[in-house]
C-alpha cells in the first residue's frame, strides 16, 4: 500500500464563496458530502418511522389470537414492506449518511473523490425508495380507516363499519375506485422467493418491488465505488492504510461488499423481470399450457441461490458499518486507544471474505444434500471467530479504561451485549439439525432482530448522539438521551426476547394470526408491550431533537475529546472542511498531538520529531499535526467542486424510466418495441443528463 508522507502545496484555484450557500436550490444541486449526509439521514429517519409504523401494525395484529385488525393480505404486505424498508431504506442509507459525513473528515479530505456521483447516489436512492413506497403511501390510509372502523365496532357495537361500507357501496364517483396503487403493495416477503413472484401467482406489486430494488442497487453501487476511491486515494498526507481510523476501514470493506454482492441481486431481478414479461423460464419449473402442467426447465432454487449470494453479504453490509462506529465510540469514552487495531481490521476483512461463502445456510431446509450442507455449516461457524475477536477487543478496550457512560457509549455497549445474544443464536443456526427445527419460526425472527436492531440500529442511534454535535454544532440532551437508550433497550428486549420462546414453541413467522389453543398469546402480548416502549423511545428522541434545535448552545470542535481528524475542525465544519490539510503521523492524531507529542519529541527521536519540535514553537499552528508548508493556504483559494443539477436530473430520469413501466401510459412504437411514453421521457432525460454531466466543467 503506497502512501505519501510528504506534504504538498495545493496550487490556488479560482476564488470560492466562503459561506455555505442556502435555499432549496442549493440543497437540490449540492455536491457537499456533509449536506448529502444530512439528506440521507433525514430520508432514512423518515423511512425508519414508516417501517416502525408497519412493525407496530404487525404487533397490533398479533396481540391476541384470531385477531382481525388487518386481513391476511395486508399482513403479508406489512411484513414485506417492514423488512424491505428497514434493510434498504433505513439501515443502509443511515450507514451511508455516516459514511458521507465521517469518512472524508476522518481522512482529512475536502470532499469525496466524485462529488457529483455522490449527489447522484442520493437522488437515485430517493427514486428507488419512492418507487417502493408509492403503493404503501396510498395503502396506509386505507389500513388506518379500517382499523378505526374495527375499533369503533368493538367499542360501540356494530355501526360505523357497516355505515362506511354502505357508503362505499353507493359511492357516487365511478372514476374513483379506491386509492390508486393501493393494491400494489409488495406482499411476497423481503426475499421474494420464486415461484411466488412469477406472474401466475402475483400481480403488479412484484414489479414495484423488483424495479424499486433495482434502482436502489444502482444508488448503492454508485456510492460504494465513490467511497472505495475516496478512501484509497484521498487520504491526508501521512495517513497510511494502517493509520486510518477504523470506521473508514469498515466503510472501505462494506463498499467492497456492495460492489461484489449487488450484481447478483441485480441479475436475479433482471431474470425475474424477463420471466414476468419476456416469457423466459429461469425460475419456472412448470408452465401452464392449455390447462396442463408442462415441464419448463427453470428452477426456483436458482432464485434462492442468486438472492442469498447477494443476501448474506448484505447482512454484513448492514452490520460492518455498525462495528466500525462502535469501534470509534468505545475508545473515546474509555479514554484508551482501540485494543488490537490491526486485528480489528483483519477481523472486518475476514468477516467480509467469509460472508461470500455461507449463503446456503439460508437454504438448509431445501434438501440441497449433505456435502454442501456440511461445508456451508462449517463456513458459517468460522465466521464466529473473527466476530468473537471483535467482541473481545471491545471488551479489552473498555478493560481498565476510564469509562464514561454517555448516551453514545450506552448504545455502543448495548450493541456489544445485544449482538452477542444475536450472534449466539446465529451460531445455533449453523448447526443444521437445529436450523431445520428453527427454520421459518419466530426463533429466526428473534435472531435477526437481535443482530439488526440490537446490532445495526443500536450502533446507528449511538452514532447519531456521537456525531450530532459535529453536524449541527449542538449536543443532544444527555438526560433525554439516556431515557431514549433505556426505553429502547427495555422495549427491544421485551419485544424480541419472547420471540425466542415463541419460535421454540412452534410459532411460524409470517402467519397473520394464531389460534387460542396455541398457547402463544402471553408472549405475544409481552412483545407488543415492548414494541410500544420502542415507539415511546422514538418519540423521546424526536423531542430531544426538537429541544436541541431550539437550544442556543455552541460546542467546540471536539466535545468528546476524541482522537480522529474529524474532531480537529469546527462544529459544524466549514464547507471546505480543512483550511489546512493535516499531516498525519499517528493513528489517533489528536490524542497524539494533545497527550504524547511532547513526550515523543524528547523520548523517541524519529524522523518526525524535528518537525514536531518546530511546531511546538508555533502554538498557533499546533492544532492538528500541521504541515508547515501548507500553513500558507488561504481560505479564499480553497478549491471546492461546483454545485450541479445533473445528479438530480439523472435521478428524476431514472425515476420516470422505472415508473413509466409500472403505470398504464400510452406507448409509442420503436421497431418492435413498444415504449411507454413516461419511460421514454425518463430515458431521454437520463441520457441527456449523463452527457450534460460529462461535459460540465465541474469546477
Amino acid at each position, binding site marked *: *500500500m*503506497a*502512501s*505519501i508522507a510528504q506534504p*504538498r502545496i*495545493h*496550487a*490556488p*484555484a479560482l476564488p470560492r464563496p466562503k459561506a455555505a450557500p442556502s435555499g432549496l436550490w442549493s440543497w437540490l444541486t449540492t455536491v457537499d458530502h456533509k449536506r448529502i449526509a444530512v439528506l440521507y439521514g433525514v430520508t432514512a429517519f423518515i423511512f425508519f418511522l414508516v417501517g416502525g409504523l408497519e412493525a407496530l401494525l404487525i404487533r397490533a395484529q398479533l396481540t391476541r389470537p384470531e385477531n382481525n385488525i388487518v386481513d391476511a393480505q395486508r399482513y403479508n404486505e406489512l411484513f414485506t414492506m417492514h423488512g424491505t424498508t428497514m434493510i434498504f431504506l433505513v439501515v443502509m442509507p443511515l450507514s451511508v449518511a455516516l459514511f458521507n459525513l465521517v469518512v472524508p473528515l476522518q481522512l482529512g479530505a475536502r470532499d469525496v*473523490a*466524485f*462529488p*457529483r*456521483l455522490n449527489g447522484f447516489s442520493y437522488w437515485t436512492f430517493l427514486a428507488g425508495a419512492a418507487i417502493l413506497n408509492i403503493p404503501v403511501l396510498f395503502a396506509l390510509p386505507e389500513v388506518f380507516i379500517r382499523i378505526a372502523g374495527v375499533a369503533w365496532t368493538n367499542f360501540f357495537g356494530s355501526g360505523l363499519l357497516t355505515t362506511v361500507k354502505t357508503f362505499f357501496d353507493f359511492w357516487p364517483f365511478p372514476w374513483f375506485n379506491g386509492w390508486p396503487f393501493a393494491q400494489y403493495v409488495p406482499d411476497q416477503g423481503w426475499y421474494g422467493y420464486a415461484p411466488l413472484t412469477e406472474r401466475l401467482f402475483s400481480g403488479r406489486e412484484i414489479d414495484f418491488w423488483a424495479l424499486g430494488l433495482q434502482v436502489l442497487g444502482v444508488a448503492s*453501487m454508485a456510492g*460504494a*465505488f*465513490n467511497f*472505495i*476511491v475516496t478512501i*484509497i*486515494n*484521498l*487520504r491526508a498526507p501521512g*495517513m497510511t492504510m494502517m493509520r486510518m481510523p477504523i470506521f473508514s476501514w469498515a466503510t472501505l470493506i462494506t463498499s467492497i461488499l456492495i*460492489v*461484489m*454482492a*449487488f*450484481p*447478483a441481486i*441485480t*441479475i*436475479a431481478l*433482471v*431474470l425475474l423481470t*424477463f420471466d414476468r414479461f*419476456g*416469457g*423466459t*423460464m*429461469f425460475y419456472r419449473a412448470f408452465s401452464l399450457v392449455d390447462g396442463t402442467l408442462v*415441464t*419448463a*426447465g*427453470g*428452477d426456483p432454487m*436458482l432464485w434462492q441461490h*442468486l438472492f442469498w*449470494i447477494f443476501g448474506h453479504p448484505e447482512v454484513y453490509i448492514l452490520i460492518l458499518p455498525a462495528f466500525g462506529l462502535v469501534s470509534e465510540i468505545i475508545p473515546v469514552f474509555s479514554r484508551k486507544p482501540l485494543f488490537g487495531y490491526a486485528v480489528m481490521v483483519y477481523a472486518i476483512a475476514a468477516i467480509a471474505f467469509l460472508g461470500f461463502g455461507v449463503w446456503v445456510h439460508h437454504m438448509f431446509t431445501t434438501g440441497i444434500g449433505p456435502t454442501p450442507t456440511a461445508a456451508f455449516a462449517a463456513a458459517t461457524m468460522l465466521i464466529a471467530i473473527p466476530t468473537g475477536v471483535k467482541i473481545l477487543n471491545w471488551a479489552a478496550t473498555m478493560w481498565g479504561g476510564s469509562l464514561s457512560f454517555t448516551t453514545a457509549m450506552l448504545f455502543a455497549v448495548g450493541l456489544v451485549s445485544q449482538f452477542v445474544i444475536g450472534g449466539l443464536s446465529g451460531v445455533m443456526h449453523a448447526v443444521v439439525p437445529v436450523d431445520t427445527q428453527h427454520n421459518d419460526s419466530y426463533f429466526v425472527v428473534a435472531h435477526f432482530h437481535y443482530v439488526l436492531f440490537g446490532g445495526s440500529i443500536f450502533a446507528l442511534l449511538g452514532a447519531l448522539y456521537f456525531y450530532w454535535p459535529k453536524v449541527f454544532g449542538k449536543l443532544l440532551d444527555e438526560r433525554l438521551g439516556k431515557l431514549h437508550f433505556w426505553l429502547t433497550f427495555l422495549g427491544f428486549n421485551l419485544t424480541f426476547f419472547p420471540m425466542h420462546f415463541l419460535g421454540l414453541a412452534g410459532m411460524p413467522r409470517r402467519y397473520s394470526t394464531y389460534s387460542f389453543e396455541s398457547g402463544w398469546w402471553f408472549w405475544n402480548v409481552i412483545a407488543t408491550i415492548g414494541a410500544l416502549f420502542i415507539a415511546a423511545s422514538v418519540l423521546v428522541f424526536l423531542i430531544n431533537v426538537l429541544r436541541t434545535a431550539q437550544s442556543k448552545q455552541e460546542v467546540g470542535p471536539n466535545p468528546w475529546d476524541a482522537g480522529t481528524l474529524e474532531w480537529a475542525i469546527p462544529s459544524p465544519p466549514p464547507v471546505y472542511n480543512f483550511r489546512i*490539510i493535516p499531516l498525519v503521523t499517528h493513528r489517533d492524531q489528536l490524542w497524539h498531538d494533545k497527550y504524547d507529542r511532547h513526550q515523543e519529541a524528547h523520548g523517541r527521536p524519529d524522523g518526525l520529531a524535528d518537525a514536531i519540535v518546530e511546531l511546538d514553537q508555533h502554538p498557533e499552528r499546533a492544532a492538528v499535526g500541521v504541515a508547515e508548508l501548507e500553513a500558507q493556504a488561504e481560505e479564499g483559494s480553497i*478549491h471546492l*467542486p461546483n454545485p450541479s443539477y445533473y445528479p438530480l436530473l439523472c435521478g428524476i430520469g431514472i425515476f420516470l424510466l422505472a415508473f413509466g413501466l409500472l403505470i398504464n401510459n400510452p406507448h409509442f412504437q420503436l421497431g418492435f418495441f413498444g415504449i411507454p411514453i413516461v419511460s421514454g421521457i425518463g430515458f431521454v432525460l437520463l441520457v441527456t443528463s449523463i*452527457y450534460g454531466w*460529462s*461535459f*460540465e*466543467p*465541474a*469546477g
Partner: protein
Amino acid sequence: MATATAIELELETAHGAGHDGHDDHGHADHPPTSTGLNSRKMLMWLFLASDCMFFGTLISTYISTRNRSIELGTPPYPNEIFDIPYTSVSAFVLLMSSLTMVLALSAIQRGDNRGLRIWIAATALLGAIFVGGQFFEFTSFAHEGLTLSSNIFGSSFYVLTGFHGAHVTIGVAWLMSLLFVSLRGGLPPEHAADVEIAGLYWHFVDIVWIVIFTLVYLIPYADGPEGAVEAVPEAFLRVLTIGERFLTALPI
C-alpha cells in the same frame, strides 16, 4: 475545460497520474492522490470488478442450465442451431477491435489526433459490425424457432448474449462520443486518460466475449436425452461403481 499548463503536466507525470482525482475534465490543480493513481481510472476498474460479478452471475446461470433443454427434450437444441464458423468470424471482428482500441490510445498519447480519430472510428465500426452480426444471428435463430420462451436454453442464451451485446452497444455509443469530442478539438494528449478508461471498458467486454464464446458455443453439448446421460464422464461412473462395490463388500 481548462487545459493543464506545462508545469502541472510535469507534476502529474512525476506522480504517475495522467489526470486529477476529481470527476471532471482537465483540472490539474487538485492535490495529487494518495496512491498516485488516477481516481477515474480506479473507478472504472471497480466498475469492471462489479461487471465481473454481473457476467459471473449470468454465466453461472447459463452453465447450470446448459444441457437441460436437451435432457428435457424441448427443442431447438444448442448443438443443432449454432453456426460456429459465423460466430467465430464475428468473435474475430470483436477481438480485432481491441487492437484498434490500443492503437487509438497509443495515438492520443503521441498527440496524433488524426490517428486517434481513425482508430476510434475503426473500433466503433468493428463493434457495430459485431452488434449487427449478433442482431442477424438472433433473427435467424428466431426464424428457426428459438425464442426467449421456446425453452430454457433460449431463455438463458438470449439473456446472456443479449446482456453482452448491450455492453458492446454502450461501448460503441461511448466511442462515438469520444470521436465527436475529438473532432470538436476536445481531446488533447493530456486527456489520454479519457480514451484509456473507455479502452479498459472495451477490452473487458472483449475478454468477456472470449469466455462466453467458449462456454456457450465451443464446448460440446450432450447429444440428446440419452446423450445427456452418456456425456457423464466415464471416470466418474467408475468412481461410483467402486463406491458401490465397496459398500456391498461391507459386512453390514
